[in-house]
């Protein structure tokens, strides 16, 4: 089974994010890497390819350094990578990104597309569904487990109350939660091999998309800090803690 995995290059989540003058997240000159949420998609793809035979293709859209995210997935074991990078895509919103990813996937054979639930930096969380719609395929989202059997897949789909069991024919798109698997670490051998694996770089024109089709539809008018909350009380003597908490709870009428 041939599996496509969407991955995103994001600024290091442990770092302090900054906004540029255009109110966009500063991505240049900032240490970054593969979104940790996407590693679960890569892991699931590798497991399926190992079980069934077939190839794993990693697809990412982003600035040139985003090839780092693709390479990380390749070093985990994916077979080939595609990076779509184009100046016209700077600041692209969800729909533009969906059009680019759908256009890229259409260029090749696939049985299944895997993605994370949402990116760690933007967290819109609707991109995969938009891609599925553009491709006209079903989408089994928020999977906390994924099994493949006889040309269809079965997932446990996270819900507010528990989970649903969802079965879906292929081709399909599945999004995976962090609970779905434990992503593997790249081995040294994997890291060495990744450098030799084919990685295509595409521009918007390669996908037959116009700049009009990827125009942003949201404009940030301003950013202002939320009024700071007044500092609370800090108790540094743990011995005092129980009485202070009880006093606080009593005042707040919680007890």
């Amino acid at each position, binding site marked *: 089974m041939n599996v496509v995995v969407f991955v995103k290059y994001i600024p290091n989540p442990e770092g302090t994010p900054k906004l540029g003058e255009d109110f966009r997240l500063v991505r240049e000159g900032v240490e970054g890497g593969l979104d940790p949420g996407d590693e679960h998609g890569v892991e699931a793809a590798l497991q399926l390819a190992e079980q069934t035979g077939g190839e794993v293709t990693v697809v990412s859209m982003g600035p040139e350094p985003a090839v780092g995210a693709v390479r990380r997935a390749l070093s985990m074991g994916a077979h080939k990578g595609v990076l779509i990078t184009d100046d016209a895509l700077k600041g692209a919103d969800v729909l533009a990104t969906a059009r680019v990813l759908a256009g890229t996937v259409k260029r090749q054979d696939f049985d299944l597309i895997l993605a994370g639930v949402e990116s760690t930096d933007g967290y819109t969380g609707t991109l995969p569904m*938009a891609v599925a719609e553009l491709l006209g395929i079903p989408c089994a989202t928020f999977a906390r487990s994924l099994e493949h059997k006889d040309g269809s897949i079965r997932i446990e789909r996270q819900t507010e109350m528990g989970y649903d069991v969802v079965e879906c024919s292929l081709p399909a798109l599945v999004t995976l939660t962090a609970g779905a698997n434990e992503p593997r670490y790249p081995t040294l051998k994997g890291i060495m091999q990744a450098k030799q694996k084919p990685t295509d770089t595409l521009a918007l024109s390669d996908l037959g998309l116009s700049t009009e089709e990827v125009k942003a539809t949201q404009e940030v008018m301003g950013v202002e800090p939320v009024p700071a909350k007044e500092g609370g009380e800090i108790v540094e003597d743990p011995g005092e803690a129980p009485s202070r908490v009880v006093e606080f709870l009593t005042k707040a009428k919680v007890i």
Partner: protein
Amino acid sequence: MPGVWVYAEVSPDGAVEPGALENLTKARGLGSSVAAVALGPGATKAAETAGRFGAETLYASDDQVFADYIAQPAAHALHQLVQQHQPEVVLFSLTYDSRDVAGRLQAKTGSTLMANATDLLGPDYAQTQIFGGSQIVDVTLSGPNPKLVITRPKSFQAEPAGGGPAKVEPVQVEIPDELKKAHRLERQEQAASGPKMEEAKVVIAGGRGLQQAENFKLLDELAAALGNAAVGASRAVVDAGWVPYAMQIGQTGKTVSPELYIAVGISGAIQHLVGMKTAKRIIAINKDKDAPIFQYADLGIVGDALKIVPEITAAIRAKKG
């Protein structure tokens, strides 16, 4: 008749998902006609609640197909309705099903979609918060109608308007077979003990500072002593497999806004803060006195949670007698 629409998830008994009621309340204030769309068993029964919270019209279909297949039938029907009635904006809750439907609808209409909105000032003007809720961002929305907006839960309080039932407009849309592929075979509800996290007056959340999964029982004991308290967790310990995902609070988990939030051994990463910082009062217990969570706490306790939490539990029991 352009207007503001709210996509409302319903249960078979006609109950409306809380986020949809918050959105209806917000929609009323935008000076336009308000309608709700409910698809699936219980939709028609939701007319009373939808009306009470401000919907003049309820587009409803009780068809089981919307419950049996993920998103595609609902997005198809909603798209037809939107084409027919041309609303200016459609509001969605940040739930699993609504996100699926909104994402698909966007690809059909080519409209803008804004997620995680914390306020809506007009049909094309919304706000969101970034960097753990420390910055408010004003965003204008352009492109074809309807604008699609997914709101963060608890961004506004749901308040009934006191109106009568919404006028039900039956939705009659044929769902093609090719949209019946992602089949929901069963629903498993995991019975949680105690109140639901989103509804509890007190939420006690544990993080890495608890050191191991077994120590969550200290929080259960504290919850029992307080009463009407639910126990949640940070992403770190959910990822570590200590507790189920359903307990996760934060960006990728639940958003809670209780009377009191007690953060135990949680440092206060941005991704956690967005899920709890609207709590009315916050107590934080953490070993590291520089932990960011203390900037949000009304009462901060610096020390070892494993030692302090049982002492607090005992003191509360003593006080309650």
